[in-house]
């Protein structure tokens, strides 16, 4: 359950920069001069946070793009990622 002010159609801040490093991803927040490490699932979730996708459609995308992920974990992973994005100020 999302409780930290994440909207139904979450939108990442447009000024964030996402780059792959090794097998992980790093999102760079220039406004706060901070960088964060994301795993593949979190990186895919962030790319779908464009203000048009509901969590259900993000879940479908994750199932499609990260096929190794346990389907029963997808909803929890999305909730965890969105909560973290919100806590880090990465969402609009």
């Amino acid at each position, binding site marked *: 359950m999302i409780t930290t002010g994440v909207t139904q159609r979450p939108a990442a801040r447009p000024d964030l*920069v996402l*780059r*792959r*490093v*090794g*097998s*992980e*991803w*790093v999102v*760079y927040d*220039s*406004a706060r*001069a*901070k*960088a*964060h*490490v*994301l795993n593949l699932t979190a990186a895919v979730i962030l790319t779908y946070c464009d203000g048009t996708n509901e969590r259900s459609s993000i879940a479908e995308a994750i199932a499609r793009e990260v096929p190794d992920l346990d389907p029963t974990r997808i909803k929890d992973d999305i909730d965890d990622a969105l909560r973290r994005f919100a806590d880090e100020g990465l969402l609009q």
Partner: protein
Amino acid sequence: MPVRRIAVAPQVLEFASDDPVAEGALAALYHAAPLSTAVPTLRYGLRRASGGTGYVATSPDRPPFGPASLGDAWAYLEWRATEDVLNAPADGGVFLHAGGVEIGSRLALIVGDSGAGKSTLVAHLMQRGHRMLGDDLVRFATADARFSAVGRSLKLDPNSLSSMPLIARTCSSATVGTLLAAGCWYVSPAAIRREWEAAPARPWAVVLLDAARRNGPSTVERTSAGEAAVFVTQKVLGAAAGGGQTRQEDVTVRLLDGLANVAAYRASGGDPAAVAAALEREVAA
């Protein structure tokens, strides 16, 4: 007054002194860097205090330091000449608090907090025949996302020389480019190896030195490349802080591009020779 100008591109550092002993000390700091005839961008002085008691160090935009002992004045000047290079505006790049060594044909960027052992590990790797970019200061160019060398002398704890017979001999024989000052040995890489400079390159690996476990068992283990990249990024952001947000963003994004295929290792322990050997094995593997 004798003046020595050296190029730490794009900066030109000028060191002036009216004292032969201080002049020799100044020459040891960036001994391996190329001399320059260009207009200096950063000027430093290490002069006898009026009355002849002690020395006074001068640096850009700071009040004079001293009178103080030669060692203290030198230590102040060395600190300023490092921080100023790190913070000075530098079109097309940034300087980073890090070491770098070319192991085989692969560049390992060595990062860690102050006191983590960057200089000691770089010195061990040099002694084992590898070329370096630096032990505490390397240059990063945004145009091609490559790191390149800075001809600054290695700063080594005298105790660490006991495990480095080649470098210890270099120091004890008073080779040009070596200096014992303010409790540390400053050793020009050119005093260790004639061909000391590694070619500019993107890193193959980032080695995170763990200061908290410096005296524990020596280990080199794979770690998160993302975490390593964030560590390096934060160092660069600190270094580029004076250039404004646009420059920070440009440098950081180019840095992340340069680290796209990097491996990451976490190294710790009290035996830097063992850590150096372990890194060689990783390269060979």
